[in-house]
């Protein structure tokens, strides 16, 4: 077995074992309303998600995450760079941003429902509110902390404003920006499900609540499984992005050659 295959085996070993155990125990155990056998959950999963409910529930959820997250990342990096480069602006706005970040985003959902209704706009607004502050704070901290030698170098070589932003400041800050983006992605996933559970007509969160209301516990479990799969897939996708963008950083610190 190659080293790579070994790593794969270790990575997937525990989940596969756990699923196998779940399958066997839930088959053998007496039937319970609250804990249906995995065989039934899998049947429900196939019926609901392969691929009947994809258009009605999965797509709206992913669209909400995608749009809200994109807005947070673009606006967050722009605002963060501005705050990181202008200490006076940073000192002025930092308490406000820190306050918004500390606010549990779920508490803001009712306000967004009143402001923008219960449609896709609301989901995008909630995801943005959940993710934006983390991106801003990480970006501004990273930009303010750029090595003075790097700043001196770009000053003494008279590198233009736009070049400096694109080829010096943002790359120099990128390791910490990416950390913020990773946390923000998790927050986005959590908050869109919360928003959909609170009020919505489509989406995975809506499906979960609907299943609960109709006492469809097997359906609920299938929805839960889907949320897990979606979250895992998104974080794997992010890892691919991170490895690409920060290949130089891993190389610099001797972790791997790009």
């Amino acid at each position: 077995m190659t080293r790579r295959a070994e790593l794969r085996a270790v990575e997937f070993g525990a989940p596969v074992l756990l699923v196998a155990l779940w399958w066997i125990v839930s088959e053998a155990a007496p039937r319970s309303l609250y804990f249906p056998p995995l065989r039934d959950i899998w049947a429900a999963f196939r019926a609901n998600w392969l691929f009947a409910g994809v258009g009605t529930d999965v797509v709206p959820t992913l669209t909400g995450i995608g749009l809200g997250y994109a807005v947070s990342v673009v606006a967050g990096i722009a605002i963060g760079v501005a705050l990181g480069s202008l200490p006076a602006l940073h000192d002025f706005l930092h308490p406000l941003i820190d306050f918004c970040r500390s606010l549990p985003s779920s508490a803001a959902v009712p306000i967004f429902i009143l402001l923008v209704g219960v449609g896709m706009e609301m989901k995008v607004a909630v995801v943005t509110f959940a993710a934006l502050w983390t991106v801003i704070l990480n970006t501004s901290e990273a930009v303010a902390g750029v090595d003075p030698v790097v700043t001196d170098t770009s000053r003494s070589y008279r590198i233009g404003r736009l070049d400096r932003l694109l080829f010096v400041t943002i790359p120099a800050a990128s390791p910490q920006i990416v950390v913020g983006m990773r946390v923000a992605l998790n927050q986005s996933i959590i908050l869109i499900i919360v928003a959909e559970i609170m009020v919505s007509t489509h989406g995975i969160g809506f499906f979960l609540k609907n299943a609960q209301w109709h006492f469809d516990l097997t359906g609920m479990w299938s929805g839960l499984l889907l949320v897990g799969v979606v979250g895992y897939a998104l974080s794997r996708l992010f890892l691919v992005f991170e490895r690409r963008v920060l290949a130089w950083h891993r190389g610099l610190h001797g972790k791997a050659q790009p």
Partner: protein
Amino acid sequence: MSSAVDVDQKIVIDALAKNYHGHGGERRVLAGVELAVRDGEFLSIVGHSGAGKTTLLRCIAGLEPPSSGGVRFDGELVTGPPPNLALIFQDYGRSLFPWLRVLGNVTLPLRSAGTLTTRERRAAALDALAAVGLADAAAQYPWQLSGGMQQRVAIARATACRPQVLLMDEPFASVDAQTRADLEDLVLGIRRQFGMTVVLVTHDVDESVYMSDRVAVLGGTPTGVTQLIDVDLPPRRDQLTTKSLPLFIDLRTRVLRAVRALSAERKSGA
């Protein structure tokens, strides 16, 4: 100082003082520094550690505003990093951008000039890399290279834009002795090739004598230029023959004595 500009003088430092405001009040680093760098010469600035050599170089480079007095470059008062001047930092590991490949590091400053096309920038960068013997390393990242090679990339980056003046801040302080000697000769060769004015800050007395036409000794508290020593060695230098000339040994003794005297004076004074 008269307003007339001596054409022979590339950089004129006039009554330069620099104070830092730190904990427990003001610290005077430089005071009354007077120094003129002639067009085309190689001038070294030596002094004991903490003498303010780097501060002086940063004032010349326009990275640090003087507290009083000033620096003139071609007669123009320096208020920020001037064009036609390139600075090589001591810490190549931090001054080369690790997210750009070697070629990207060398071309980036060329973009700011705005006069070259992408193809011309690439050609100029490859020329500069070839001049330091690193044409093959263009596609690599700086951190994939050895310390000496990284500093050669930094030299290529500085010379690619064909500056009239090259400033170097302890450029060879963090490489081994053999690499250091190679880099010294490389810089001398490049300077001969492009005919630029060089100001080198170093704490190494031998290096200052070996490389330069003149050596300025910094000392005192606060620091000023205490001695200017002409190095009238033959223009072509060689690590073996130059360094064994009686004149070389005599010169290095004079420079060393000047640095030592000031450093001893500082210790007894403090």
